[in-house]
Protein backbone atom coordinates (compact mmCIF):
# COMPACT_ATOMS: atom_id res chain seq x y z
CA UNK A 1 0.00 0.00 0.00
CA UNK A 2 2.77 2.39 0.92
CA UNK A 3 4.77 1.47 -2.13
CA UNK A 4 1.92 1.66 -4.59
CA UNK A 5 0.07 4.74 -3.41
CA UNK A 6 1.75 6.72 -0.67
CA UNK A 7 5.25 7.07 -2.06
CA UNK A 8 4.14 8.06 -5.57
CA UNK A 9 1.70 10.52 -4.05
CA UNK A 10 4.41 12.08 -1.91
CA UNK A 11 6.71 12.21 -4.90
CA UNK A 12 4.07 13.82 -7.07
CA UNK A 13 3.32 16.44 -4.45
CA UNK A 14 6.99 17.08 -3.92
CA UNK A 15 7.79 17.42 -7.62
CA UNK A 16 4.74 19.58 -8.24
CA UNK A 17 5.59 21.96 -5.44
CA UNK A 18 9.26 21.99 -6.24
CA UNK A 19 8.41 22.78 -9.84
CA UNK A 20 6.06 25.59 -8.97
CA UNK A 21 8.52 27.12 -6.55
CA UNK A 22 11.29 26.60 -9.06
CA UNK A 23 9.23 28.31 -11.71
CA UNK A 24 8.54 31.36 -9.57
CA UNK A 25 12.18 31.59 -8.63
CA UNK A 26 13.06 31.13 -12.26
CA UNK A 27 11.37 34.48 -12.85
CA UNK A 28 13.48 36.07 -10.16
CA UNK A 29 16.60 34.39 -11.49
CA UNK A 30 15.88 35.70 -14.94
CA UNK A 31 15.44 39.21 -13.67
CA UNK A 32 18.60 38.95 -11.66
CA UNK A 33 20.73 37.39 -14.37
CA UNK A 34 19.60 39.85 -16.99
CA UNK A 35 20.15 42.66 -14.54
CA UNK A 36 23.70 41.51 -13.92
CA UNK A 37 24.35 41.27 -17.63
CA UNK A 38 23.07 44.79 -17.98
CA UNK A 39 25.14 46.14 -15.10
CA UNK A 40 22.29 46.80 -12.74
CA UNK A 41 20.96 45.17 -9.62
CA UNK A 42 17.56 43.80 -10.47
CA UNK A 43 14.92 43.40 -7.76
CA UNK A 44 16.36 44.43 -4.40
CA UNK A 45 13.44 45.68 -2.36
CA UNK A 46 11.48 42.64 -1.21
CA UNK A 47 13.61 40.69 1.20
CA UNK A 48 17.39 40.59 1.16
CA UNK A 49 18.62 40.81 -2.44
CA UNK A 50 14.99 40.60 -3.53
CA UNK A 51 14.62 36.90 -2.76
CA UNK A 52 11.01 37.34 -1.68
CA UNK A 53 10.13 39.07 -4.93
CA UNK A 54 8.33 36.01 -6.44
CA UNK A 55 6.02 35.89 -3.44
CA UNK A 56 5.26 39.56 -3.79
CA UNK A 57 4.64 39.05 -7.51
CA UNK A 58 2.35 36.13 -6.86
CA UNK A 59 0.36 38.04 -4.27
CA UNK A 60 0.07 40.99 -6.60
CA UNK A 61 -1.08 38.88 -9.54
CA UNK A 62 -3.61 36.98 -7.48
CA UNK A 63 -5.08 40.14 -6.04
CA UNK A 64 -5.29 41.89 -9.39
CA UNK A 65 -8.59 42.18 -11.14
CA UNK A 66 -9.05 39.35 -13.58
CA UNK A 67 -10.44 40.99 -16.67
CA UNK A 68 -12.29 39.12 -19.37
CA UNK A 69 -12.89 41.21 -22.47
CA UNK A 70 -16.59 41.55 -23.29
CA UNK A 71 -16.28 40.19 -26.79
CA UNK A 72 -14.05 37.31 -25.73
CA UNK A 73 -15.12 33.70 -25.82
CA UNK A 74 -15.38 33.28 -22.07
CA UNK A 75 -14.95 29.53 -21.76
CA UNK A 76 -12.03 29.25 -24.10
CA UNK A 77 -10.50 32.40 -22.66
CA UNK A 78 -10.52 30.82 -19.22
CA UNK A 79 -9.42 27.40 -20.41
CA UNK A 80 -6.43 28.57 -22.47
CA UNK A 81 -3.99 29.35 -19.63
CA UNK A 82 -4.87 26.07 -17.98
CA UNK A 83 -4.26 24.19 -21.21
CA UNK A 84 -0.83 25.80 -21.38
CA UNK A 85 0.05 25.10 -17.76
CA UNK A 86 -1.08 21.50 -17.35
CA UNK A 87 1.12 19.86 -20.03
CA UNK A 88 4.11 21.77 -18.72
CA UNK A 89 3.57 20.28 -15.28
CA UNK A 90 2.62 16.70 -16.13
CA UNK A 91 5.76 16.30 -18.21
CA UNK A 92 7.72 16.06 -14.97
CA UNK A 93 6.12 12.67 -14.36
CA UNK A 94 8.71 10.89 -16.49
CA UNK A 95 11.78 12.99 -15.86
CA UNK A 96 14.32 11.09 -13.75
CA UNK A 97 15.95 13.28 -11.14
CA UNK A 98 18.11 10.49 -9.84
CA UNK A 99 18.50 6.71 -9.75
CA UNK A 100 16.88 4.37 -7.25
CA UNK A 101 18.22 5.40 -3.89
CA UNK A 102 17.96 4.04 -0.40
CA UNK A 103 15.74 6.40 1.58
CA UNK A 104 14.81 5.58 5.19
CA UNK A 105 15.58 1.95 4.55
CA UNK A 106 13.35 1.78 1.52
CA UNK A 107 14.35 1.60 -2.13
CA UNK A 108 12.90 4.72 -3.67
CA UNK A 109 13.42 5.70 -7.29
CA UNK A 110 13.97 9.44 -7.70
CA UNK A 111 11.45 9.72 -10.46
CA UNK A 112 7.70 9.55 -10.44
CA UNK A 113 7.41 6.85 -13.04
CA UNK A 114 9.36 5.24 -15.77
CA UNK A 115 7.30 4.33 -18.81
CA UNK A 116 8.62 2.58 -21.85
CA UNK A 117 7.44 5.43 -24.10
CA UNK A 118 8.84 8.18 -21.87
CA UNK A 119 10.42 10.36 -24.50
CA UNK A 120 7.43 10.09 -26.82
CA UNK A 121 5.20 10.94 -23.89
CA UNK A 122 7.08 14.18 -23.34
CA UNK A 123 6.88 15.10 -27.01
CA UNK A 124 3.19 14.32 -27.24
CA UNK A 125 2.30 16.17 -24.07
CA UNK A 126 4.32 19.15 -25.21
CA UNK A 127 2.35 19.18 -28.46
CA UNK A 128 -0.84 19.75 -26.47
CA UNK A 129 0.51 23.00 -25.05
CA UNK A 130 0.10 24.63 -28.45
CA UNK A 131 -3.65 24.70 -27.95
CA UNK A 132 -3.42 27.05 -25.04
CA UNK A 133 -1.51 29.57 -27.08
CA UNK A 134 -3.68 29.34 -30.19
CA UNK A 135 -6.88 29.44 -28.22
CA UNK A 136 -5.69 32.17 -25.89
CA UNK A 137 -4.98 34.41 -28.85
CA UNK A 138 -8.18 33.47 -30.63
CA UNK A 139 -10.48 33.77 -27.65
CA UNK A 140 -9.26 37.27 -26.80
CA UNK A 141 -11.06 38.45 -29.93
CA UNK A 142 -8.39 41.03 -30.55
CA UNK A 143 -6.13 41.51 -33.52
CA UNK A 144 -2.66 41.55 -32.02
CA UNK A 145 -3.20 38.37 -29.98
CA UNK A 146 -4.66 36.64 -33.02
CA UNK A 147 -1.61 37.48 -35.10
CA UNK A 148 0.61 36.35 -32.26
CA UNK A 149 -1.19 33.08 -31.76
CA UNK A 150 -0.98 32.29 -35.47
CA UNK A 151 2.72 33.05 -35.29
CA UNK A 152 3.18 30.97 -32.18
CA UNK A 153 1.36 27.95 -33.46
CA UNK A 154 3.11 27.97 -36.84
CA UNK A 155 6.39 28.29 -34.99
CA UNK A 156 5.66 25.53 -32.51
CA UNK A 157 4.44 23.12 -35.15
CA UNK A 158 7.44 23.62 -37.38
CA UNK A 159 9.97 23.38 -34.58
CA UNK A 160 8.34 20.31 -33.15
CA UNK A 161 9.33 18.48 -36.32
CA UNK A 162 12.98 19.42 -35.96
CA UNK A 163 13.07 18.62 -32.26
CA UNK A 164 11.35 15.28 -32.76
CA UNK A 165 13.82 14.43 -35.51
CA UNK A 166 16.75 15.12 -33.20
CA UNK A 167 15.07 12.98 -30.59
CA UNK A 168 14.83 10.17 -33.13
CA UNK A 169 18.59 10.20 -33.50
CA UNK A 170 18.91 10.19 -29.72
CA UNK A 171 16.57 7.20 -29.50
CA UNK A 172 18.73 5.44 -32.05
CA UNK A 173 21.82 6.18 -30.02
CA UNK A 174 20.31 5.07 -26.74
CA UNK A 175 18.21 2.24 -28.12
CA UNK A 176 15.28 2.97 -25.82
CA UNK A 177 12.45 5.41 -25.26
CA UNK A 178 12.52 5.21 -21.51
CA UNK A 179 14.09 8.23 -19.87
CA UNK A 180 15.70 6.16 -17.12
CA UNK A 181 17.16 3.70 -19.58
CA UNK A 182 18.56 6.54 -21.68
CA UNK A 183 20.53 7.72 -18.67
CA UNK A 184 21.61 4.19 -17.88
CA UNK A 185 22.74 3.75 -21.44
CA UNK A 186 25.01 6.77 -21.01
CA UNK A 187 26.33 5.16 -17.86
CA UNK A 188 27.17 2.05 -19.83
CA UNK A 189 28.89 3.97 -22.58
CA UNK A 190 30.96 6.01 -20.08
CA UNK A 191 30.03 9.11 -22.01
CA UNK A 192 27.40 11.79 -22.03
CA UNK A 193 25.54 11.74 -25.29
CA UNK A 194 26.50 15.33 -26.00
CA UNK A 195 29.85 13.96 -27.10
CA UNK A 196 28.20 11.31 -29.22
CA UNK A 197 25.60 13.56 -30.78
CA UNK A 198 26.87 17.16 -30.72
CA UNK A 199 24.83 18.15 -33.78
CA UNK A 200 21.67 16.84 -32.21
CA UNK A 201 22.45 18.79 -29.07
CA UNK A 202 22.77 22.08 -30.95
CA UNK A 203 19.59 21.38 -32.89
CA UNK A 204 17.73 20.46 -29.73
CA UNK A 205 18.92 23.61 -28.02
CA UNK A 206 17.81 25.86 -30.87
CA UNK A 207 14.56 23.98 -31.24
CA UNK A 208 14.04 24.19 -27.50
CA UNK A 209 14.47 27.95 -27.57
CA UNK A 210 11.90 28.15 -30.33
CA UNK A 211 9.47 25.75 -28.70
CA UNK A 212 9.48 27.61 -25.43
CA UNK A 213 9.01 30.92 -27.25
CA UNK A 214 12.19 32.29 -25.77
CA UNK A 215 14.45 34.96 -27.17
CA UNK A 216 15.63 35.17 -29.90
CA UNK A 217 12.52 33.34 -31.06
CA UNK A 218 10.03 35.11 -28.84
CA UNK A 219 8.08 36.79 -31.62
CA UNK A 220 4.85 35.32 -30.36
CA UNK A 221 4.98 37.58 -27.35
CA UNK A 222 7.26 40.28 -28.72
CA UNK A 223 5.95 43.28 -26.86
CA UNK A 224 7.75 45.61 -29.23
CA UNK A 225 5.85 44.24 -32.18
CA UNK A 226 2.65 42.70 -30.97
CA UNK A 227 2.23 44.42 -27.61
CA UNK A 228 2.71 41.24 -25.62
CA UNK A 229 1.39 38.78 -28.14
CA UNK A 230 -1.15 36.14 -27.28
CA UNK A 231 -1.51 37.20 -23.65
CA UNK A 232 -2.15 40.86 -24.39
CA UNK A 233 -5.71 40.68 -23.10
CA UNK A 234 -4.91 38.58 -20.06
CA UNK A 235 -4.49 39.94 -16.59
CA UNK A 236 -4.22 38.77 -13.03
CA UNK A 237 -3.91 35.09 -12.30
CA UNK A 238 -4.61 33.96 -15.83
CA UNK A 239 -1.74 36.04 -17.11
CA UNK A 240 0.41 34.58 -14.34
CA UNK A 241 -0.43 31.08 -15.54
CA UNK A 242 0.75 31.89 -19.06
CA UNK A 243 3.82 33.47 -17.64
CA UNK A 244 4.64 30.57 -15.34
CA UNK A 245 3.94 28.01 -18.04
CA UNK A 246 6.65 29.58 -20.16
CA UNK A 247 9.16 29.14 -17.37
CA UNK A 248 7.90 25.67 -16.58
CA UNK A 249 8.45 24.79 -20.22
CA UNK A 250 11.96 26.13 -19.99
CA UNK A 251 12.61 23.85 -17.04
CA UNK A 252 11.10 20.93 -18.95
CA UNK A 253 13.30 21.53 -21.97
CA UNK A 254 16.33 21.93 -19.73
CA UNK A 255 15.60 18.74 -17.83
CA UNK A 256 15.01 16.81 -21.03
CA UNK A 257 18.24 18.14 -22.48
CA UNK A 258 20.05 17.23 -19.29
CA UNK A 259 18.66 13.73 -19.38
CA UNK A 260 19.31 13.15 -23.04
CA UNK A 261 22.60 14.89 -23.60
CA UNK A 262 24.23 15.67 -20.29
CA UNK A 263 23.81 12.31 -18.63
CA UNK A 264 20.92 13.15 -16.34
CA UNK A 265 21.94 12.45 -12.78
CA UNK A 266 25.35 11.09 -13.81
CA UNK A 267 28.65 12.72 -13.03
CA UNK A 268 30.88 13.69 -15.95
CA UNK A 269 32.39 10.63 -17.62
CA UNK A 270 30.39 8.18 -15.48
CA UNK A 271 31.50 4.69 -14.64
CA UNK A 272 35.18 5.55 -15.03
CA UNK A 273 37.18 4.21 -12.12
CA UNK A 274 39.56 7.04 -11.28
CA UNK A 275 36.78 9.62 -11.54
CA UNK A 276 34.70 7.93 -8.89
CA UNK A 277 35.33 10.75 -6.38
CA UNK A 278 32.75 12.74 -8.36
CA UNK A 279 30.22 10.27 -6.98
CA UNK A 280 30.36 12.00 -3.59
CA UNK A 281 28.15 14.70 -5.02
CA UNK A 282 24.60 13.32 -4.77
CA UNK A 283 23.04 12.31 -8.05
CA UNK A 284 20.11 14.71 -7.85
CA UNK A 285 22.63 17.48 -7.24
CA UNK A 286 24.30 16.73 -10.56
CA UNK A 287 20.94 16.79 -12.23
CA UNK A 288 20.02 20.13 -10.71
CA UNK A 289 23.40 21.62 -11.52
CA UNK A 290 23.19 20.67 -15.16
CA UNK A 291 19.60 21.80 -15.51
CA UNK A 292 20.52 25.07 -13.88
CA UNK A 293 23.46 25.57 -16.23
CA UNK A 294 21.14 24.96 -19.13
CA UNK A 295 18.60 27.44 -17.81
CA UNK A 296 21.34 29.98 -17.36
CA UNK A 297 22.19 29.69 -21.03
CA UNK A 298 18.55 30.39 -21.83
CA UNK A 299 18.71 33.61 -19.84
CA UNK A 300 22.08 34.56 -21.19
CA UNK A 301 20.84 34.18 -24.75
CA UNK A 302 17.86 36.35 -23.98
CA UNK A 303 20.06 39.11 -22.62
CA UNK A 304 22.39 39.02 -25.60
CA UNK A 305 20.61 38.43 -28.85
CA UNK A 306 18.14 40.51 -30.86
CA UNK A 307 14.94 38.93 -32.03
CA UNK A 308 14.53 37.01 -35.25
CA UNK A 309 11.86 37.99 -37.66
CA UNK A 310 8.97 35.61 -38.10
CA UNK A 311 9.69 34.59 -41.69
CA UNK A 312 13.40 34.19 -40.97
CA UNK A 313 12.53 31.94 -38.08
CA UNK A 314 10.32 29.78 -40.25
CA UNK A 315 13.00 29.64 -42.90
CA UNK A 316 15.55 28.63 -40.29
CA UNK A 317 13.26 25.90 -39.03
CA UNK A 318 12.19 24.38 -42.32
CA UNK A 319 15.21 24.98 -44.48
CA UNK A 320 18.06 24.58 -42.01
CA UNK A 321 17.13 22.71 -38.87
CA UNK A 322 14.87 20.02 -40.31
CA UNK A 323 17.25 19.01 -43.13
CA UNK A 324 20.18 18.90 -40.71
CA UNK A 325 18.11 16.88 -38.26
CA UNK A 326 17.12 14.39 -40.95
CA UNK A 327 20.72 14.15 -42.15
CA UNK A 328 21.73 13.54 -38.57
CA UNK A 329 19.26 10.68 -38.31
CA UNK A 330 20.59 9.16 -41.53
CA UNK A 331 24.22 9.50 -40.43
CA UNK A 332 23.40 8.02 -37.03
CA UNK A 333 21.72 5.08 -38.73
CA UNK A 334 24.67 4.48 -41.03
CA UNK A 335 27.12 4.64 -38.15
CA UNK A 336 24.92 2.31 -36.12
CA UNK A 337 24.80 -0.25 -38.92
CA UNK A 338 28.52 -0.06 -39.69
CA UNK A 339 29.86 -0.20 -36.14
Amino acid at each position, binding site marked *: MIDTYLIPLVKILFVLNATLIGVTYMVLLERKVIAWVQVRLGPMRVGPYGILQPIADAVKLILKEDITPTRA*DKWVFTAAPIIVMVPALITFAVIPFGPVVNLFGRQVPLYITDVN*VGLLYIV*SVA*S*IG*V*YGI*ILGGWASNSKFPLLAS*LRASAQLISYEVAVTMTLVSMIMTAGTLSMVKIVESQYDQHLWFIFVQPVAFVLFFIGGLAETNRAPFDMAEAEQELTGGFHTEYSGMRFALFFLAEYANMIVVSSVATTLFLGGWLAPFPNVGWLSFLGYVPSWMWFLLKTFAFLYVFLWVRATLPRYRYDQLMRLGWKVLIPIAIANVVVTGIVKVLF
Partner: protein
Amino acid sequence: MAQSIAFYVLSTFILGFAVLVVTTRNTVHAVLFLVLNFLAVAALYVLLTAQFLAVIQVLVYAGGIVVLYLFVVMLVNLKRPPEDHMAPQRHNWIGFGLSALVLVELGAIIGYGAVAPAGPVGAQTSDLALNNVERVGMLLYTDYLIPFEVASMLLLVAMVGAIILAKREL
Protein backbone atom coordinates in the same frame (compact mmCIF):
# COMPACT_ATOMS: atom_id res chain seq x y z
CA MET B 1 -12.71 -3.59 -10.64
CA ALA B 2 -10.45 -0.63 -11.19
CA GLN B 3 -10.43 -1.48 -14.85
CA SER B 4 -14.21 -1.47 -15.00
CA ILE B 5 -14.45 1.91 -13.32
CA ALA B 6 -11.82 3.31 -15.64
CA PHE B 7 -13.58 1.88 -18.67
CA TYR B 8 -16.96 3.30 -17.79
CA VAL B 9 -15.61 6.70 -16.88
CA LEU B 10 -13.58 6.91 -20.07
CA SER B 11 -16.46 5.64 -22.19
CA THR B 12 -18.69 8.30 -20.73
CA PHE B 13 -16.12 10.93 -21.59
CA ILE B 14 -15.58 9.59 -25.09
CA LEU B 15 -19.25 9.42 -25.95
CA GLY B 16 -20.10 12.66 -24.19
CA PHE B 17 -17.41 14.64 -25.94
CA ALA B 18 -18.31 13.00 -29.25
CA VAL B 19 -21.92 14.14 -28.84
CA LEU B 20 -20.70 17.63 -28.01
CA VAL B 21 -18.46 17.67 -31.09
CA VAL B 22 -21.41 16.87 -33.28
CA THR B 23 -23.90 19.19 -31.62
CA THR B 24 -21.97 22.33 -30.70
CA ARG B 25 -22.69 25.31 -32.93
CA ASN B 26 -19.36 26.98 -32.26
CA THR B 27 -16.75 25.28 -34.41
CA VAL B 28 -13.83 26.19 -32.18
CA HIS B 29 -15.59 24.61 -29.24
CA ALA B 30 -16.23 21.55 -31.36
CA VAL B 31 -12.51 21.30 -32.09
CA LEU B 32 -11.73 21.59 -28.39
CA PHE B 33 -14.18 18.81 -27.56
CA LEU B 34 -12.60 16.70 -30.28
CA VAL B 35 -9.23 17.12 -28.58
CA LEU B 36 -10.71 16.07 -25.25
CA ASN B 37 -12.35 13.12 -26.95
CA PHE B 38 -9.02 12.04 -28.41
CA LEU B 39 -7.31 12.39 -25.08
CA ALA B 40 -9.94 10.16 -23.50
CA VAL B 41 -9.45 7.63 -26.30
CA ALA B 42 -5.71 7.75 -25.65
CA ALA B 43 -6.37 7.00 -22.02
CA LEU B 44 -8.48 4.06 -23.12
CA TYR B 45 -5.53 2.79 -25.15
CA VAL B 46 -3.36 2.96 -22.04
CA LEU B 47 -6.01 0.88 -20.33
CA LEU B 48 -5.64 -1.62 -23.17
CA THR B 49 -1.84 -1.60 -22.56
CA ALA B 50 -1.20 -0.03 -25.95
CA GLN B 51 1.03 2.75 -24.63
CA PHE B 52 2.70 3.41 -27.94
CA LEU B 53 -0.63 3.86 -29.67
CA ALA B 54 -1.81 6.11 -26.86
CA VAL B 55 1.18 8.38 -27.25
CA ILE B 56 0.86 8.36 -31.03
CA GLN B 57 -2.82 9.20 -30.67
CA VAL B 58 -1.96 12.26 -28.60
CA LEU B 59 1.03 13.28 -30.68
CA VAL B 60 -0.44 12.84 -34.14
CA TYR B 61 -4.14 13.25 -33.60
CA ALA B 62 -4.45 15.73 -30.78
CA GLY B 63 -1.19 17.55 -31.32
CA GLY B 64 -1.06 17.49 -35.10
CA ILE B 65 -4.24 16.88 -36.99
CA VAL B 66 -6.59 18.77 -34.72
CA VAL B 67 -4.25 21.77 -34.68
CA LEU B 68 -4.73 21.78 -38.44
CA TYR B 69 -8.48 21.86 -37.93
CA LEU B 70 -8.12 24.68 -35.50
CA PHE B 71 -6.00 26.60 -37.99
CA VAL B 72 -8.57 26.17 -40.70
CA VAL B 73 -11.39 27.20 -38.40
CA MET B 74 -9.49 30.35 -37.52
CA LEU B 75 -8.56 31.12 -41.11
CA VAL B 76 -12.07 30.54 -42.37
CA ASN B 77 -13.57 33.63 -40.91
CA LEU B 78 -17.26 33.12 -41.45
CA LYS B 79 -19.65 36.01 -41.79
CA ARG B 80 -22.69 33.80 -41.30
CA PRO B 81 -22.58 30.35 -39.78
CA PRO B 82 -23.16 27.58 -42.31
CA GLU B 83 -26.11 26.23 -40.37
CA ASP B 84 -28.12 29.32 -41.22
CA HIS B 85 -28.31 28.41 -44.86
CA MET B 86 -31.52 27.00 -46.15
CA ALA B 87 -31.05 23.57 -47.63
CA PRO B 88 -34.30 22.02 -48.72
CA GLN B 89 -32.66 19.03 -50.34
CA ARG B 90 -31.15 17.77 -47.10
CA HIS B 91 -32.72 14.62 -45.77
CA ASN B 92 -32.10 14.39 -42.09
CA TRP B 93 -34.25 11.30 -41.86
CA ILE B 94 -31.50 9.37 -43.66
CA GLY B 95 -29.30 10.09 -40.70
CA PHE B 96 -31.87 8.88 -38.27
CA GLY B 97 -32.56 5.82 -40.33
CA LEU B 98 -28.90 4.95 -40.42
CA SER B 99 -28.47 5.48 -36.74
CA ALA B 100 -31.45 3.22 -36.15
CA LEU B 101 -29.59 0.64 -38.18
CA VAL B 102 -26.57 1.13 -35.94
CA LEU B 103 -28.77 0.68 -32.90
CA VAL B 104 -29.94 -2.63 -34.32
CA GLU B 105 -26.32 -3.63 -34.76
CA LEU B 106 -25.64 -2.61 -31.18
CA GLY B 107 -28.41 -4.89 -30.07
CA ALA B 108 -26.95 -7.68 -32.15
CA ILE B 109 -23.59 -7.23 -30.47
CA ILE B 110 -25.13 -7.34 -27.05
CA GLY B 111 -27.11 -10.39 -27.97
CA TYR B 112 -24.10 -12.16 -29.37
CA GLY B 113 -22.03 -11.19 -26.35
CA ALA B 114 -24.69 -12.63 -24.07
CA VAL B 115 -24.96 -15.86 -26.04
CA ALA B 116 -21.26 -16.50 -26.52
CA PRO B 117 -19.17 -14.52 -24.01
CA ALA B 118 -15.64 -13.66 -25.07
CA GLY B 119 -12.79 -15.62 -23.62
CA PRO B 120 -10.47 -14.42 -20.87
CA VAL B 121 -8.34 -11.40 -21.62
CA GLY B 122 -4.56 -11.74 -21.76
CA ALA B 123 -2.59 -10.79 -18.71
CA GLN B 124 -1.46 -7.21 -18.28
CA THR B 125 2.09 -8.31 -17.71
CA SER B 126 2.34 -10.01 -21.06
CA ASP B 127 5.12 -9.32 -23.49
CA LEU B 128 2.91 -7.10 -25.66
CA ALA B 129 2.20 -4.84 -22.69
CA LEU B 130 5.75 -4.64 -21.40
CA ASN B 131 7.64 -4.27 -24.64
CA ASN B 132 4.88 -2.53 -26.52
CA VAL B 133 7.11 -0.30 -28.60
CA GLU B 134 9.46 -3.09 -29.59
CA ARG B 135 6.66 -5.46 -30.52
CA VAL B 136 4.78 -2.96 -32.62
CA GLY B 137 7.99 -1.73 -34.18
CA MET B 138 9.09 -5.25 -35.03
CA LEU B 139 5.78 -6.01 -36.74
CA LEU B 140 5.83 -2.72 -38.56
CA TYR B 141 9.32 -3.14 -39.95
CA THR B 142 9.16 -6.84 -40.81
CA ASP B 143 5.77 -8.26 -41.72
CA TYR B 144 4.17 -4.95 -42.59
CA LEU B 145 7.10 -3.18 -44.18
CA ILE B 146 5.43 -2.74 -47.55
CA PRO B 147 2.18 -1.31 -46.14
CA PHE B 148 4.34 0.93 -44.00
CA GLU B 149 6.20 2.25 -47.01
CA VAL B 150 2.94 2.68 -48.89
CA ALA B 151 1.59 4.67 -45.96
CA SER B 152 4.64 6.89 -46.02
CA MET B 153 4.14 7.45 -49.75
CA LEU B 154 0.53 8.32 -49.02
CA LEU B 155 1.63 10.90 -46.50
CA LEU B 156 4.13 12.35 -48.93
CA VAL B 157 1.50 12.62 -51.64
CA ALA B 158 -0.91 14.20 -49.17
CA MET B 159 1.72 16.71 -48.16
CA VAL B 160 2.44 17.71 -51.74
CA GLY B 161 -1.27 17.87 -52.46
CA ALA B 162 -2.00 20.01 -49.44
CA ILE B 163 0.77 22.45 -50.33
CA ILE B 164 -0.46 22.78 -53.87
CA LEU B 165 -4.05 23.25 -52.75
CA ALA B 166 -3.24 25.82 -50.13
CA LYS B 167 -0.64 27.82 -51.99
CA ARG B 168 -1.95 30.84 -53.81
CA GLU B 169 0.34 30.80 -56.76
CA LEU B 170 2.90 28.27 -57.77
